[in-house]
């Protein structure tokens, strides 16, 4: 018998089986289920149809109002209120209120709620982010969340796994965002549909947790069920001081079967830019040079972490945002916000004439805090550039890493960070 991948082993353990293979349908015990102010209301409606007086395990439910919050309008306020009341009624301790919250996929790892070997579902497609810590984590719908809150289980088809090996040395200004954009560009928006994406190789071993989270976050943009890095020294040092809970890391067998292995040499990679209207429309930044932009957004569950803000600040320091451009910076959590203040990054941003927002998904999904008008172009460190995603259906979104975003905000058009730093 051949070996199993990390994902197969985690799902086997969750299903109480010795082994599973791709294609098997399994019902697994869920360690954590997550909802937000958009998806939880639908889940709550479904959950209440069951007439239960308790959730399966209140410790295993996490609720984060982050999409249209701080409430953008009355309708959003009503949704947030519904979630807040549900959390109170069912004793959900991991409910994160405004002022304590963050964008869910930045917040949960930061709070030590995500552990290696866990099975995590979230009624949010970017739940796949947590694979960066060696968990099986995947996005589901609201009804799945309702069911998990009721019975603590979810059903899955065991995915086959595609392996991506990154070799060489990362050039300056190239980071995790570029690796994942490049990868999606290579395989397409459905290249990993229904599959697990294993990210490995010498480049990944050296990649800090922020970059790993960014990569796993966008597995869904290739259609992936999950993306992951096996736990290692970087993982364990990230977890230090964040959790007192015991956990059991899971590793793929040496003879695990991967459906496909792709190897990329990154040594000559340029920063990548995904052109509209899909994240697989990626080009080296040199091909985007000169595209004039109206708005730049640095933030989101993809790139709103401290390392991202530091990269942006290194470029913005002592410079000014182009007069024609609006730069919006959104630290992903309160803790990141405070740390950015302590490090002086906020001063740099304000002096550069950027607008700083409280944590929110906001403009990433065209919710609020930076909606585009007809014909406007945005450059964003977010994850999707579909038609109408950030506002008017005739606006356009280009995706990139935080350094390219910051440099381009100064130039008023898409540029390689080198050009601003020269």
């Amino acid at each position, binding site marked *: 018998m051949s070996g199993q991948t990390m994902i197969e082993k985690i799902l086997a353990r969750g299903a109480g089986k010795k082994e599973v293979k791709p294609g098997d*349908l399994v019902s697994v015990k869920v360690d954590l289920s997550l909802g937000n102010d*958009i*998806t939880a*209301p*639908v889940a709550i*409606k*479904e959950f209440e*149809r*069951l007439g*239960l007086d308790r959730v399966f395990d209140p410790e295993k439910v996490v609720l984060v109002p982050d*999409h*249209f919050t701080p409430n953008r*309008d009355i*309708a*959003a306020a*009503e*949704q947030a209120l519904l979630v807040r009341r549900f959390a109170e009624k069912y004793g959900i301790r991991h409910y994160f209120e405004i002022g304590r919250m963050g964008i869910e996929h930045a917040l949960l790892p930061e709070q030590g709620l995500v552990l290696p070997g866990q099975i995590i579902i*979230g*009624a*949010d*497609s970017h*739940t796949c982010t947590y694979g960066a810590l060696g968990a099986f984590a995947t*996005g*589901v*719908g*609201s*009804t*799945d969340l*309702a*069911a998990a809150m*009721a*019975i603590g289980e979810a*059903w899955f*088809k065991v995915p086959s796994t595609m392996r991506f090996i990154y070799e060489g040395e990362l050039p300056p200004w190239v980071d995790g965002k570029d690796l994942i954009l490049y990868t999606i560009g290579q395989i397409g*928006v*459905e290249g990993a*549909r*229904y599959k697990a994406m294993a990210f490995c190789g010498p480049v990944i071993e050296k990649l800090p947790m922020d970059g790993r989270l960014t990569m796993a976050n966008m597995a*869904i943009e290739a*259609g992936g*069920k999950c993306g992951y890095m096996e736990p290692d020294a970087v993982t364990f040092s990230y977890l230090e001081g964040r959790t007192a809970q015991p956990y059991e890391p899971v590793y793929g067998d040496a003879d695990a079967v991967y459906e496909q292995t792709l190897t990329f040499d990154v040594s000559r990679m340029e920063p990548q830019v995904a052109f509209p209207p*899909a994240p697989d429309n990626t080009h080296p930044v040199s091909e985007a040079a000169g595209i004039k932009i109206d708005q730049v957004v640095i933030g989101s569950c993809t790139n709103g972490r401290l390392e991202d803000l530091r990269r942006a600040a290194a470029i913005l320091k002592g410079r000014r945002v182009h007069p024609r451009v609006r730069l919006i910076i959104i630290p992903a959590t309160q803790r990141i916000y405070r740390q950015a203040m302590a490090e002086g990054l906020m001063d740099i941003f304000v002096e550069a004439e950027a607008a700083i927002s409280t944590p929110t998904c906001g403009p990433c*999904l*065209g*919710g609020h805090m930076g909606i585009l008008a007809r014909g406007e172009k945005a450059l964003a460190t977010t994850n*999707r550039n*579909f*038609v*109408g*995603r950030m506002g008017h*259906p005739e606006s356009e979104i280009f995706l990139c890493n935080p350094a390219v975003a910051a440099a381009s905000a100064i130039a008023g058009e898409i540029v390689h960070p080198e050009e601003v730093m020269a």
Partner: protein
Amino acid sequence: MILEGKVWLFGDNVDTDAIIPARYLSATDPEELAAHCMEDINPDFAASVQAGDLLVAGSNFGCGSSREHAPLALKGAGVSCVIAKSFARIFYRNAINIGLPILECEAELSRILAPGELLRVDLSAGMIIRLSDGSRYQAAPFPTFMQEIIQQGGLIEYVRHRLKR
């Protein structure tokens, strides 16, 4: 169950932002959502779609976000079934979970069919029949476990049964 209806055609990679733009996600009522269904990629759809119409698309239908509002909007619009070459996985499970009929069919129906033509669909047999010329297309069968969810009327009913056991 046998369905018969008029076809609406869509291409590949129809994402959930296209099916229901995020700006409308403060609503959860299917009919409210239906009023804005597909509005950024086909502004006529929401106003013209009729109960019982079928939606035929290419590959990776429903990619992008996990919003269940997408299949809810289609259901609210009266779409009786979505037929696609393939579905993005979260949309697929959402549709099964809420009881929106979907069929995965390898044939390039979104390229073969004309908008507005009539199809007959035998859901349990997974058979799609083009009424203009009688040509038949077989959809992929559902695994037994999913058939159970479908038969019980969605995931919540399935869970209700389990809790009773």
